[in-house]
């Protein structure tokens, strides 16, 4: 909502300059959007007086003037035919840039030095006239800035008005706020109309078919208007607050809407069939050509203003082209109504039309304002265009409005706001806001018709706090307690997991949850995805079921930026569509990591190999910590065959680990090997949370270490070899680690050599070499029997 500083002053006095006005209104709830100093364009233009004129010696049409500009007398060469001594003029001093873009410099014009320019209308951006210089009122004092002297130096202030405050969408509404803050009296504009001619009822008939949609409809007839351009002051004001000038009738109705906040519409009477106004629902198939030339298809839920046969306007939204005011219009019917907000909102949003009128009606107009607004417009029309106002407004009012009464408890108000206001102070604030207050216990507050947002005590408490000033309420730093925060294992473990992965060298990423369906198709989960009905882009229309494509995309981005290696993880939510309609998608926390490219941070003397399966597997093992983590070969559509594993933890499925398939890498422009794991974070948390953490006594007796190297078929799973070895000497085995793996010329084809470091210990007594040898032999024996292994 744009207002101008000077315009606002017509309705209420205040001693604030514009920055303070902005500050006060901001602190009362109008959010400052911006300011435009209309006077800034006249910077450098001052009031001057022409002391003398004499013809230029070298040019017939030029005059050499001596002009008093306050700071001295300047010689100015002027080409205007109307310049004369004694005139009060607008002087653009050297260094000025005029609104039209013209730059004024000291110059010599045909041999005579000229210090400035006497301005014509067009040069000041006030109109098109270039016939001569502007001659001003001689009361203006010489030397004062042009903008300040003429009142053109107004300031336009733009406020954002919250949707609960339709009353602030007008100059009067904002003046009411100033009144509430200062107590200075409000000046309501003149609405005294002189009526003449035949009564309205002889000319038109108004019927409301659906009074719930239109509780009130008031018409007034003005006859004999002369349509034409609006006077300059009116055009300037409308332009300042962002309204385009159309013609005087339309401009006046817009002016009254900006002034009082109530939208009006003017119909050409003779365009109304049967001279009737019927407020009714549109009929199926009806169409309406709007003022702006668009054709709208109406439906039976939309409210229209029709004549005897067809719609002439979309109620509260926009008028129709057929009955709009044009140059030859003489008799008009002015409409001022109150429409149900939801009805206007429905039509507005279905047709996608945004108008100033609709904004006001759908948020709730003042049901008590139609007659005043109508009279204000009628008065301005007769003043500016001539014409006569037919006697009495025709006020069809089937559903009279009632001012709401709300009880308000003073103690409750003070308790909620942490204030100590007495009843009188609260009453004063509410009365300045236009309420009537009965000083009973509780207070009984009758709210004004222009405040549809005030319906409950809480709303009134807000008003009291707002006008009293939230900044005057002291913040309280102590809490009443005791308050003990609950341990939240999910949250704790989220932080633990993230810290571990960061420590293990992975960077954390946070990616979009709304992803391209194509991504999910690539990993074969598209059919489980929940989809958006109105996605941000055509392709980005699904909720992610997995973090994998997102990580691949991040890898692509960073390799494109010449990263040597990408090691990243994300801990985030994934979604699975519910099988039943109307049920929310399932949301699960996933943890995924991707490692590709160089494993080391710095190239100096470091490991420059590329990350592989076992780098990422080791990292996952380190993350999970102690526990029964199992890897089994798996076939996964997103993985290279033979390079993927499914993972279980304590017998529960946890997730998978593998190398991204060539197809997937190609889809994400990745040229290097990419390894990924994705696990259910919920399953990991369950494991961590349930883990026993009791103490085991440290061993008292020394261990014996033995190495064992065997040759087995190449496809033998190492984990099974270890399990077999453990089972052969269950009480003595402390650990079995693989320390070497060999395949090549030294052994037969299709076989591999695996070397184990075995640590044996008896927890009860010192282990003897003979026992260790026996245990190792037993292991070898079992391996021979089960896997055909032989000692290497």
């Amino acid at each position, binding site marked *: 909502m744009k207002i101008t500083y000077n315009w606002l002053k017509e309705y209420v006095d205040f001693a604030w300059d514009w920055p303070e006005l902005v500050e006060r209104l901001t602190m009362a709830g109008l959010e400052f959007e911006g300011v435009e100093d209309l006077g800034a364009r006249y910077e450098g233009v001052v009031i001057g007086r022409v002391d003398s004129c004499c013809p230029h010696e070298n040019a017939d049409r030029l005059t050499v003037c001596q002009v008093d500009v306050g700071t001295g007398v300047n010689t100015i060469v002027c080409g205007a035919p109307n310049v004369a001594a004694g005139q009060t003029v607008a002087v653009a001093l050297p260094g000025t840039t005029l609104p039209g873009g013209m730059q004024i410099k000291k110059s010599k014009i045909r041999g005579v030095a000229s210090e400035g320019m006497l301005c014509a209308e067009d040069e000041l951006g006030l109109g098109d006239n270039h016939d001569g210089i502007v001659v001003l009122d001689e009361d203006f004092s010489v030397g004062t800035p042009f903008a300040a002297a003429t009142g053109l130096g107004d300031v336009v202030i733009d406020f954002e008005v919250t949707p609960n405050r339709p009353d602030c969408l007008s100059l009067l509404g904002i003046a009411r706020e100033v009144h509430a803050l200062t107590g200075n009296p409000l000046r309501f504009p003149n609405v005294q109309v002189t009526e003449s001619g035949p009564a309205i009822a002889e000319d038109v008939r108004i019927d409301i078919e659906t009074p719930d949609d239109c509780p009130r409809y008031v018409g007034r007839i003005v006859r004999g208007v002369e349509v034409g351009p609006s006077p300059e002051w009116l055009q300037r004001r409308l332009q300042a607050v962002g309204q385009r000038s159309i013609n005087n009738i339309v401009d006046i109705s817009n002016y009254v809407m900006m002034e009082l906040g109530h939208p009006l519409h003017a119909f050409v009477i003779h365009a109304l069939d049967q001279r009737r106004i019927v407020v009714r629902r549109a009929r199926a198939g009806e169409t309406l050509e709007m003022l702006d030339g668009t054709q709208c298809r109406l439906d039976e839920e939309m409210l229209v203003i029709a004549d005897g046969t067809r719609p002439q306007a979309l109620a509260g939204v926009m008028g129709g082209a057929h009955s709009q005011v044009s140059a030859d219009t003489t008799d008009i019917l002015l409409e001022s109504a109150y429409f149900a907000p939801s009805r206007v909102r429905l039509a507005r949003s279905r047709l996608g039309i945004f108008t100033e009128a609709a904004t006001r009606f759908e948020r709730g107009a003042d049901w008590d304002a139609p007659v005043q607004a109508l009279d204000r417009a009628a008065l301005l029309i007769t003043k500016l265009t001539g014409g006569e106002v037919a006697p009495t407004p025709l006020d069809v009012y089937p559903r009279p409005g009632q001012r709401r009464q709300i009880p308000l408890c003073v103690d409750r108000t003070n308790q909620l706001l942490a204030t100590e206001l007495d009843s009188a102070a609260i009453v004063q604030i509410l009365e300045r806001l236009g309420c009537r207050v009965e000083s009973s216990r509780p207070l009984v507050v009758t709210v004004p018709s222009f405040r549809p947002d005030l319906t409950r005590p809480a709303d009134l408490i807000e008003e009291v706090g707002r006008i009293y000033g939230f900044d005057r309420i002291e913040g309280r730093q102590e809490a009443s307690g005791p308050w003990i925060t609950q341990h*939240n294992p999910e949250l704790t473990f989220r932080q633990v997991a993230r810290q571990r992965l960061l420590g293990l060298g992975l960077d954390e990423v946070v*990616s979009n949850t709304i992803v391209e369906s194509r991504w999910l198709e690539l990993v074969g989960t598209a059919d489980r995805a929940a989809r958006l009905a*109105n996605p941000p882009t055509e392709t980005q229309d699904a909720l992610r079921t997995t973090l994998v494509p997102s990580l691949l995309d991040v890898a692509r981005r960073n390799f494109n*930026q010449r990263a040597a290696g990408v090691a990243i993880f994300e801990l985030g939510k994934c979604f699975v569509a519910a099988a039943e309609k109307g049920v929310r998608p399932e949301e699960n926390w996933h943890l995924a990591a991707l490692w590709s490219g160089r494993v080391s941070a*710095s190239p100096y003397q470091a490991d420059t190999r590329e990350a592989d399966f076992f780098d990422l597997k080791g990292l996952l093992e380190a993350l999970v910590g102690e526990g029964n983590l199992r890897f089994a070969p798996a076939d996964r559509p997103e993985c290279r065959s033979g390079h993927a594993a499914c993972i279980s933890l304590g017998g529960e499925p946890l997730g998978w680990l593998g190398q991204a398939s060539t197809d997937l890498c190609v889809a994400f422009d990745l040229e290097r090997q990419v390894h990924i794991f994705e696990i259910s974070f919920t399953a990991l948390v369950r494991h961590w949370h349930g883990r026993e953490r009791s103490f085991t006594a440290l061993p008292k007796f020394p261990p014996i270490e033995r190495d064992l190297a065997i040759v087995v078929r190449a496809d033998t799973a190492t984990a099974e070899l270890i399990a077999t070895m453990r089972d052969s000497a269950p009480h003595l085995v402390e650990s079995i680690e693989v320390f070497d793996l060999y395949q090549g010329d030294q052994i037969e084809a299709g076989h591999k050599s695996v070397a184990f470091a075995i640590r044996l210990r008896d927890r009860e007594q010192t282990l003897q070499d003979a026992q260790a040898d026996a245990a190792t032999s037993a292991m070898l024996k079992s391996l021979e029997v089960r896997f055909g292994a032989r000692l290497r």
Partner: protein
Amino acid sequence: MLEEVRQLASVVVAEIAAAQDDKALEALRVHPLGRKSRLRQIARQIGHLPAAQRPALGEATGRAQQAIQQALDDKALALRQMAESASALDVTLPGRRPLLGCAHLLSQLTDELISIFQGMGFDVADGPEAEDEYHNFDALNTPADHPARDLHDTFYLEGGGLMRTHTSTVQIRVMEQTPPPVRIISLGRCYRKETVDATHHFAFHQIEGLYVDRGVSFADLKGTIEAMGRQLMGAETLVRFRPHFFPFTEPSVEYDFTCICKRQRANCSICKGTGWIEIAGAGMVDPAVFTAVGYDPDEYTGFAFGMGLERIAMIRHGIDDVRRFLENDLRFIRQF
């Protein structure tokens, strides 16, 4: 003989000084001081000399031996130092750095906020991102044809439901499950159908706070927000509360923090010279919200607040483009 001893000493000392390495030095040690050395021979002859000559020659051979020994020690030390300095490290070479990951800025801020609010006795609650109309709008006093719905351009799901437009949904879910008093924060992702540009993204993160009990007042809200402001933006941070409108709070406010420019720069790009940065919204819980969750609005009062994480991070770190957060350029992530 006396002269010979002196000559011998000076020659040997000179030879030692000229030795280039440990091996040469060792040879020199054996030659002048060994059992068969000339100096020893002379020393053995001292006993056969007339008594008058013995002291002078004895002293001379002793001094010569001492001088040679000293020369040997000095040289040995010098050679060791030379050898060590030849193998000295260039300590300015780069260290072999293990990888250390960097937490995403939004996670860092999340952790910081959790820590701030746990310190003030707030529990951390979680709620779904795919929501229903009831929890996102209706229960928050925003019925279907409420103009405030225009403020939220919502993503709807095929088959019903929507992506939550704010974390206020968690207020409802917590209050539905928990009898008062309640003191929680919730952090998470929200969605609004915005055109993506430098200051808007359709996905963003919020923190929500809720405190409900008997006797909770606007002063409690102010105190909490002020405490958060000081911890997030520095001890001198002031907060101002401007009236605003949210359907689910009454009174509603927006709160501003004093700008980090401390009003020293008229053209400050963050506050535009006003000295205040708009942060987010807050207010006292609307009685209609209490009614929706079955709390008695006459008995309980409460406050709620929200705040956008990206906005705070952008202000604190001078980040110019909100798209950076979900883009995951590691050069961005590793800056914080």
